[in-house]
């Protein structure tokens, strides 16, 4: 029973934190542009409004399922990762799987979303789905190699184990113990968050605006909440993997906040890659960085 309560609280908390972070990031971007920016609560208002809009678009069942796939994937990832170490109520389901299961579920969420969006019949959505899947397979590669390097180095695939191994002080964080693998993973984090220069999926000037182009009202609001949840889940995963996990709530919030601002700031100063440029970069730079550490660990 306590477990269920904690799961519900985790999901709600992650959703609000994700939406709040989104609002803050809009303000940060606006300040870089030299503007005031919206309220930090703007994303909540947008979600509420979208939820109350009517929708008469009909593209079949798969189209409606797509945001659900995304949310399911996000919730699974969220529950697999321990939030705060030492705080047993926030462990949720993290006993159940290991880091590979989490990577698989992350891929699954995006794939389901791609299937649904491809069903909308809009040519821009189809183009964006093919772009997104091509890019996803390239950043997943470098991310997986980085994760394998870390896991092999720490001799555990359990996320709890990876987090516990980093508790000896700041220098025991994986980002210092495995600098190359961490760099590879952090570069792969940018396309995961659809940050520029890798934002080829939601390119408004090229294919306005990619997979969600036909989604509106309630589906769009589900899609946005899925993105917010997924974003938070990824942040927590990265904090656990590279930045020593979180020993209390404040350090969790601070670490996720700082990590979230990294793609936001990078996005503001770069234009987009073209698809093949992005894929070439992702195959080459982060993958070779991650491989350096993997080889080092194997030797």
């Amino acid at each position, binding site marked *: 029973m306590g477990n269920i309560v904690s799961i519900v609280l985790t999901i709600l908390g992650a959703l609000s934190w994700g939406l709040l972070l989104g609002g803050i990031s809009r303000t940060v971007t606006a300040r870089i*542009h*030299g503007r005031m920016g919206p309220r930090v609560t703007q994303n909540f208002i947008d979600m509420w409004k979208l939820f109350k809009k009517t929708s008469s678009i009909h593209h079949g069942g798969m189209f409606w399922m797509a945001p659900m796939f995304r949310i399911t994937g996000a919730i699974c990832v969220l529950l697999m990762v321990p939030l705060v170490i030492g705080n047993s109520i926030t462990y949720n389901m993290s006993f159940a799987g290991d880091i590979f299961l989490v990577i698989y579920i992350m891929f699954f969420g995006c794939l389901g979303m791609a299937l649904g969006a491809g069903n909308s019949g809009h*040519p*821009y959505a189809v183009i964006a789905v093919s772009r997104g899947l091509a890019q996803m397979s390239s950043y997943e590669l470098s991310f997986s190699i980085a994760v394998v390097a870390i896991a092999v180095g720490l001799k555990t695939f359990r996320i709890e184990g990876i987090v516990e191994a980093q508790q000896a002080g700041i220098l025991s964080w994986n980002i210092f113990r495995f600098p190359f693998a961490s760099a590879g993973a952090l570069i792969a984090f940018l396309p995961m968050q659809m940050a520029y220069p890798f934002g080829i999926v939601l390119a*408004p000037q*090229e*294919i306005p605006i990619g997979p969600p182009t036909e989604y509106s009202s309630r589906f769009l609001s589900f899609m946005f909440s899925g993105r917010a949840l997924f974003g938070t889940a990824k942040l927590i995963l990265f904090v656990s993997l590279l930045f020593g996990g979180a020993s209390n709530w404040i350090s969790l919030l601070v670490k996720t906040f700082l990590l979230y601002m990294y793609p936001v700031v990078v996005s503001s100063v770069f*234009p*987009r890659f*073209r698809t093949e440029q992005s894929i070439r970069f992702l195959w080459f730079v982060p993958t070779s960085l991650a491989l350096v550490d993997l080889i080092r660990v194997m030797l």
Partner: protein
Amino acid sequence: MGAVIDPATDPKKTTHLYFGPQHPGVTGNMSIEMWFDGDQVTKAITHVGYLHRAFEKLMEKRLWIQNFPLVCRICVPEPDINEECYAMAIEELAGIEVPEKAKWIRTLVLELARFAVNLMAFGGQSGTLGLHTAGMWGITFRDFVLDLFEELTGARIYHIFIQPGGVRRDLPEGFEGRVEAVLKKIEERLPELDRLVLNNAIFKLRTQGVGIVKPEWIEEYGLVGPVARASGSTRDLRKDAPYEVYNQLEFDVVTETGNDIFARAMVRRREISQSMSLIRQILKKMPKNGPVATKLPNLTTWRVPAGEVYTRVESSRGEYGYYVVSDGSLTPRRIHVRGPSYVHAVPLLERMLVGANIADVSNIMVSLTTCPPEIER
């Protein structure tokens, strides 16, 4: 035998896509119909006419002077070019002399307009690649210039400031100082914009070698302005066929030889600096006193003598031409406007897009800074 299928539009091998008119990557209100083979364009057709307001017909119905509010609406970002061109045609037909000071003020207005448009276009080039920061800054800088226009003419966009035989009014007191303050403010921030755009590795990657305009196309299509100058042309009407007081100012024609989008962005960036120097020269050399307009006859009964003339002015997008025919009546017989976008956006764009990547379509289009209202008028 069945009907012959054009391989460029074969429905089995190509995807048929429409860009626009509701599309954030298309400049203004026009659309491109395209066929794609994978990521590559095999055929492109531009559709214009969404902004057709029948200016040329309306101008035949109105008095000569009543057309000034109409002509400035032909090109939205840079209206002064139209007023200047139309006023020059009337002056040529009616033999009106423009006072010295009016010429200087006209040149100042034209240069300020070019400055504002280039700021917007330079930022917009990176905005279309997703670098919104530069686009936002560019438009903010332009706003400062629009403030100057507002003080001088009373309007932000449509000024209706130039009239046959001069300009509407003299410069307000202390205007020079305020122009200088704006130039200084923008000059301080420009290096930052340069670092953001021109030194950006990804911007270079996206623009260099993309959207090639071959030098031999310049004469074949009649390309003008930054598009031609980025392909090695040294053609600039301000130098080659000077009007107003451009022959008394010192400047070099900006040319680049890259032929690509980066070269066009570079031309615009260097023209921003050139405009700043020109504005400073104008303010320095401008005569302090003197009339700013010649007296015109009663405008409601003014008959411009019969004749035909073609006048040209260099706008920020290239050469702008007005073909004006008068039959000696109260209203013009025919006015035909030749905007630079006409050739850039219709035949040239259709040719340039073939073989382009889908991601570069709006990139190429924005690099030509097409302005649809001057195509369809």
